């Protein structure tokens, strides 16, 4: 597994998309630091970008890599290597290079500019950590979708739809449900509904660290009471972990049964 992972990472390092992705985040966050003198504003803008782009790019990367390296995978399948090792290795390779890009792209500007602005490092680290989690989650989901669909177009379509679902449709349904049942107490529903979506959960984890959390009023108070302490964080991150592990289990099961 480690060898497959190593080759995947080397393969990805040879593609310029990885550098482009990393460079984009580096330039963006660097520019934001240079142009804005309000660190919390920097984090909010970066958060918007991270929450939209990271899942999207991870999704596309995952699908693309699977279909592109299919022949290589078939070659490996002919060798005496365990199937799970091959696919998990490939997944880990993608996930590693994506997470590494994020950590480097957002993290380096922090190291460079942290002396200039009075930034609270904890909030920024939260941004990086959620970014990494989102990369891991969405590349796993997209890898699984690609594995499920033999047809490239269908695979692409399905994984883009999954991204669309979590980024937009989920929130739309959420909002409709909230307005429809507005006569009832909804805090607990809001809490569970937002834990159910990794993007929403990451967004709330970051916002709770920022000043604007005060705008969220009673619901926000409930959230920060539940998630503000160590146990809450533990729950939030175990939910995020679950979002990685469930697709991974899927990958293992599908790859074992799949007829190539």
């Amino acid at each position, binding site marked *: 597994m480690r060898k497959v992972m190593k080759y995947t990472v080397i393969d990805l390092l040879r593609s310029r998309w990885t550098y482009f992705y990393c460079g984009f985040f580096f330039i963006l966050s660097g520019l934001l630091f240079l142009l804005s003198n309000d660190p919390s504003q920097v984090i909010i803008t970066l958060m918007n970008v991270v929450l939209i782009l990271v899942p999207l790019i991870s999704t596309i990367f995952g699908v693309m890599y699977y279909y592109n390296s299919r022949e290589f995978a078939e070659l490996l399948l002919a060798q005496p290597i365990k199937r799970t090792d091959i696919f998990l290795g490939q997944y880990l390779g993608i996930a590693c290079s994506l997470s590494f890009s994020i950590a480097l792209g957002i993290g380096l500007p922090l190291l460079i500019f942290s002396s200039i602005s009075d930034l609270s490092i904890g909030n920024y680290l939260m941004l990086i950590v959620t970014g990494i989690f989102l990369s891991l989650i969405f590349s796993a989901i997209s890898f699984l979708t690609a594995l499920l669909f033999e047809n490239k177009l269908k695979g692409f379509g399905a994984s883009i739809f999954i991204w669309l679902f979590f980024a*937009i449709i989920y*929130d*739309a349904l959420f909002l409709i449900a909230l*307005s429809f049942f507005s006569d009832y107490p909804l805090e607990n529903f809001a809490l569970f509904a937002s834990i159910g979506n990794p993007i929403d959960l990451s967004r709330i984890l970051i916002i709770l660290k920022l000043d*604007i959390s*005060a*705008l*969220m*009023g009673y619901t926000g108070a409930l959230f920060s009471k539940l998630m503000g302490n160590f146990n809450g964080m533990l729950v939030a991150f175990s939910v995020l972990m679950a979002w990685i592990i469930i697709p991974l289990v899927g990958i293992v099961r599908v790859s074992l049964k799949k007829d190539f």
Partner: protein
Amino acid sequence: MGRVVLTFIFIFICSVSNAEIIKVCATCNFTTISSAINNASAGDVIEIHQGVYTEGNLLIDKAISVVGVDWPILDGQNENEILTIISDGVRVEGLILRNVGTSYLEDRSALRLRNSSDFIIKNNRLENAFFGIYLERSNNGIVADNRIIGEAVDEMSSGNGIHLWYCKNIEVSNNIVSSHRDGIYFEFVDNSKVHGNISEHNLRYGLHFMFSNFDEYFQNTFRDNGAGVAVMFSKKIDMYDNLFENNWGKSSYGLLLKEIYDAEITNNKFIKNTIGVYVEGSTRINYSANIFKNNGWAIKVRGGCLDNFISGNDFISNTFDLSVPSNIEGNSFDGNYWSEYKGYDLDKDGIGDVPHRPVKLFNFIVFKTPEAMVLLRSLFVELINITERVSPVFTPKNVTDNSPSMKSFF
């Protein structure tokens, strides 16, 4: 006002003409303040020199001046009210009053004036007082240049910095009040002025009006309070040149207006408050030339507001500029600068050609279902805000700025 000044001059002349200076210190004729007060007659000056005096409650019942030299300390030892004044024409200056002590049964205060008029309370330092300066049924006085620093922990067990009850013609100026329940509290106080004060770190309000009419406050700073200023059940209050800053928290406001009529709110700065102005049931209020910057909500209006005019204000980088109920009528929002305005100005007259709708769709939804706030800054919310701006359907029609300014006013 003229009458007040005349009276002061009169008192001053009186005290000059037959004033006797009675010194109090460890080596003077009088070693206690109470004995000095007993021997003083109207118009005398009691000069208290450096030292710590623990004499319990002191009653001043004649028109004398009590002046501290080199900051003498009057200590209430956490169980007493310190100075109680029941005479007219008293002056208290240059004292340190400390350790009044919390009481759940009485409103103990460091300095209390009861049925007094024509007084001056100036340049004192109050430390760890339960209530600081407490005026009841007193008129025509000045409370100025005092530093009142409390140690309030929670609202239940704390008192107000400067507390006025049934007073008229009082001037509260240039005081620093911090860490009390309310910094300055007015109940049934008419024709009074509050200016140049700094009120910060108070648990509830920086300045609080209840049932008080014809008052004005200006050039004050309200910072880091539970809420900056609350004006409730009052008429004809003028508010201008104040700074409301950093009143940030889950239920914080810069300015809270509840059941008030005929107020003028001009030239104030509202910076980084959760809610800049929170309005409920207020009528005939003019907002002009104010700056609202970096607030959560610049103005949040609940029901029952009529004939409010909001014009000539700057709304810059607020998360929400305006939040209103859907059935709001008879209020005008014309002629402001909105940093969120996306319109254009073809005829170059400085006024945008397209009306601006300051209420975003998400804001409108949050007004109805506050829980929807968890979706703050999500992609979907940004999308519906954009679609609503392009073709408004849901946001209230009568909340529009028909002549939005292209440039900020300040």
